[in-house]
């Protein structure tokens, strides 16, 4: 498989948007033994673009994200990521024997990692918890710490694998605001994997559906943020996306 050289593709090719792109994937395939999970995925993400990836459970969303993160090799196809990558997983994966601040600063190569970590913690509203042990955090706090650990690296591409799915509904709403806020401030390209159609519609510029190992559907969401769940445009998009995911609603079938 051709793992593209960072830096060489950016100027030569541009995404449809005209902006330089941070991710370019062509014909990506991934097999686990006999089972083909990704079967020719094409994907571009522009710099600073917020993309949501929907798909049924087991459709290969995490597999695609892990390939982008460099955690797994693809079986075939091209994949290039131009710039630095940070990941926040579904479980916060904080290192339990390092205090929250040390988790955020872990592996950070800047002159003053501690100060950078404190700044990132302040941005996610965890100023007070820098000295706490991860196991004493609530689910929402741990997920915010995990976001801070990803953002402090000032990534060009932020990969989020269902980071809110284990949180309660109220915390999730707070986290949506926080992610939008951080995205607007730092403008990384974001790939947000989710199985929550509303979450995708509220946050992303573009919503993709992964099905049958390919990007089976794509919707642009050209609405200003913050968006409202019951905006008429979103209602229509929601029905279309749910239909793509094999869920029929009253709206969808009407």
């Amino acid at each position: 498989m051709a793992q593209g050289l960072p830096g060489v593709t950016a100027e030569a090719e541009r995404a449809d948007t005209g902006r330089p792109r941070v991710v370019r994937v062509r014909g990506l395939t991934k097999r686990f033994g006999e089972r083909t999970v990704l079967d020719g995925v094409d994907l571009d993400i522009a710099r600073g673009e917020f993309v949501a990836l929907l798909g049924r459970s087991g459709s290969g969303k995490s597999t695609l994200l892990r390939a982008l993160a460099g955690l797994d090799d693809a079986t075939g196809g091209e994949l290039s990521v131009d710039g630095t990558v940070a990941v926040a997983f579904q479980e916060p994966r904080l290192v339990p024997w390092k205090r929250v601040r040390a988790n955020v600063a872990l592996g950070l190569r800047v002159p003053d990692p501690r100060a950078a970590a404190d700044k990132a913690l302040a941005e996610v509203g965890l100023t007070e918890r820098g000295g706490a042990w991860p196991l004493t955090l609530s689910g929402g706090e741990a997920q915010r710490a995990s976001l801070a650990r990803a953002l402090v690296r000032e990534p060009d591409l932020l990969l989020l694998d269902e980071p809110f799915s284990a949180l309660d509904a109220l915390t999730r709403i707070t986290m949506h605001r926080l992610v939008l806020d951080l995205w607007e401030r730092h403008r990384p390209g974001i790939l947000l994997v989710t199985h929550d159609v509303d979450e995708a519609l509220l946050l992303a510029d573009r919503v993709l559906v992964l099905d049958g190992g390919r990007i089976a559907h794509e919707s642009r969401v050209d609405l200003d943020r913050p968006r409202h769940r019951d905006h008429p445009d979103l209602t229509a998009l929601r029905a279309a996306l749910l239909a793509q995911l094999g869920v029929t609603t009253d709206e969808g079938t009407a």
Partner: protein
Amino acid sequence: MSTSVSSPSSLARAPGRARAVPGFARRRRAALARLVAPLALLVVWQLASGAGLLSERQLAAPTAIASTALDLIRDGTLTDAIAVSVRRAAAGFALGAAAGIGLAVAAGLSRLGEHAVDPLMQMLRALPLFGLIPLFILWFGIGETPKVALVALGVAFPLYLNTFSGIRGVDGKLAEVAEVLRLGRWGLVRHIVLPGALPQALVGLRQSLGVAWLALIVAEQINASSGLGFMINNAREFLRTDVVVLGLVVYAALGLLTDALVRLLERRALTWRKGFPV
């Protein structure tokens, strides 16, 4: 803050805080209650000795043992013996710990190391430790070496086995975190693997200290011209049960002391675990 609205769950979560003072008194009473039976045993023992039910040759009276202890401390016999034995235990422990931990790290961090080290260790650990004594005497004579070697061998295995399984038990998801944070191989070892293996390694440390004292006691029984074992054996020849019991008490106290040290170490090193008192 209003107490009238506190929910049952919040009450249930902090019962200790709400009734801190009576709880403390109750714990102290409980600690005192636990002393009753041992003290009663001492009294009965003393009375039995005084009444002539226990002869001096079978078991000396507690008061006799205490006064012997004072005598032996005063003339330096006891302190010298303790110093010699502690030195043997420490030397053996240091050697065994270095070998056990070093081999565990080598085997835990690479497949090559595992194939080179683990089968041998699994094979050797099946050997009965004390069954090796005759060989050790043939190889090392009857000086300090066989005693230190026996302790070292006894210490190495529990530390090896626990540290190795601790390293292998480290959460693979954290290894992925190290990868996406670009910690590099050494960073992975330093920040994730070794600290992750520490709780299990400390379990190994406690086991190995238990074995260390046991191995020392056995090794000192065989032939020694100094140390606690020598003191006990010597006393047996002269039917001095007071000195024999004193030696046993000192062995026990040393064992308890090192165990307490490990507990302290655990407490300090594992504060990150939820519920561990800070």
